[in-house]
């Protein structure tokens, strides 16, 4: 029982970080009706911004985190929207999807060539010491990662549903034509969405990189799992992305512990196929309509 609890909590912790990246897929889908296949790299790059802040500018870790977050919002939020999404979107969603694939390669190769091809250690936000949780030995890092990730999702949900700006963002996503005639600044709301996506990706990076180490290829795994999590949960719902992320994190850990670790990488793909066959709109998704 204690082992099950340990595996479950560890899975939830990892899954909640996947969920942050998966929510980014949902947000960008709502705002621009496109899939950002560079989302995994968006989680990989901020860790290197932090390392640059510490290594090149001599910043203390916490300041480097703030630097990494700000730079990510500027580059992966603002510049991504202005330089890639806005010019390419009028040429069609598929064109933009292909552009994000190219961007993923560009980011990966740039980090590899300009920083290092080797995995870099990344300071942990929280202690990795074990603690007793109802008889199970669970790492403090896992518990705090889970709490921080879920708190971020709760804050984001409250922002979108309880504030006027959040509801304006929903209006801009669900019916941009109506939002415009009501006086909502649709372009600004879309920009906010991209900035939030970049911030979520950065926070996911800060939580997961201490475990995975900072490596140029991290985005491949994280991007694929987050993409599958978003589809499994329901691509047009934030809560769907959360459920998808948690589900994959937990199933991955349970399978590795109780079945086999050999095929754990195949599990998300099996889950994806099952969901597409049984419930193509995802567990929480709706077959039509857009909402954030």
């Amino acid at each position: 029982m204690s082992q099950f609890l340990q595996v479950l909590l560890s899975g939830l912790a990892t899954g909640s970080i996947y969920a942050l990246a998966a929510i980014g897929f949902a947000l960008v889908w709502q705002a621009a009706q496109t899939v950002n296949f560079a989302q995994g790299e968006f989680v990989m790059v901020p860790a290197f911004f932090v390392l640059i802040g510490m290594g090149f500018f001599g910043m203390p870790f916490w300041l480097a985190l703030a630097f990494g977050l700000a730079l990510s919002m500027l580059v992966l939020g603002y510049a991504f929207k202005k330089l890639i999404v806005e010019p390419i979107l009028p040429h069609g969603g598929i064109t933009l999807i292909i552009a994000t694939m190219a961007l993923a390669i560009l980011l990966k190769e740039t980090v590899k060539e300009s920083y290092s091809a080797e995995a870099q250690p990344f300071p942990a936000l929280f202690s990795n010491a074990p603690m007793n949780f109802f008889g199970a030995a669970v790492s403090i890092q896992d518990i705090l990662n889970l709490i921080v990730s879920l708190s971020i999702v709760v804050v984001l949900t409250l922002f979108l549903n309880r504030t006027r700006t959040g509801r304006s963002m929903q209006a801009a996503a669900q019916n941009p034509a109506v939002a415009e005639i009501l006086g909502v600044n649709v372009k600004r709301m879309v920009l906010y969405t991209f900035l939030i996506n970049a911030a979520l990706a950065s926070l996911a990076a800060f939580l997961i990189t201490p475990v995975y180490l900072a490596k140029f290829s991290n985005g491949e795994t994280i991007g694929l799992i987050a993409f599958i999590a978003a589809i499994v949960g329901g691509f047009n719902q934030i809560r769907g992305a959360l459920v998808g992320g948690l589900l994959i994190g937990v199933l991955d850990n349970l399978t590795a512990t109780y079945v086999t670790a050999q095929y754990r990488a195949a599990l998300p793909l099996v889950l994806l196929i099952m969901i597409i066959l049984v419930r193509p709109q995802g567990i929480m998704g709706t077959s039509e309509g857009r909402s954030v």
Partner: protein
Amino acid sequence: MLELRNLVGGYGKITILNGVSFSIPKGTITTMIGPNGAGKSTVFKAIFGLLKIESGNVLIDGQDVTRQTPRQMIAHGVTYVPQGRNIVPQLSVYHNLELGGVTAPDQDKVKQRIETVMDQFPMLREFRNRKAVELSGGQQKQLEVARALLLDPKLILIDEPSIGLSPVLVQEVFKTLIRLRDQGVTILMVEQNAKAALAMSDYGIVLELGQTRMHDKASNLLVDPRVGQLFLGGHVEEASPADAH
């Protein structure tokens, strides 16, 4: 109240409006009619800053508001209810109403206005927490009209309010518009159901090929044989300059 002077404009390189001119007085209902493609909805979009105006002017109470943004037009007291479904589907009825006042600096006042508007449309109070997408077509149209009233507009541009509604609900919407007119609001409407719309209007405008062909009292247009001819597939032959004023 609203005056258009020789308005020319369209979508990209395609010109739809070829010199639309008319003026409508305050506190009246004016219905714009014309065959498909005449440019009726385009006139609304041009007034509201949603498409390119090549030349001409839009004036409100004598003030030139040509090429202003929707946000600026709202500040001038103009609201626009386009045809079709114009709700934010996943937001509640209350929050859809609230969006009607999103540009207002005083949000406490918006909350008070929502209560006033819900008094006028009791159905909205009943369903205030329901998602807008869960309302019927007629209820959604009422929500749109109510939302348009939130900032106490001087001028409402309403496009095809009867589309998709049952005859009973059409009468309800028309009654609402008459009530607003009686309160001093100016209404410019496009309506396919021309006879019914003209019957409840003060003035009528006939638009054809992006130009004003006729502009007269609605009661006169109702009995004008040229209007019937226009809607039977012909075009207005004898529109004198005096008709288009």
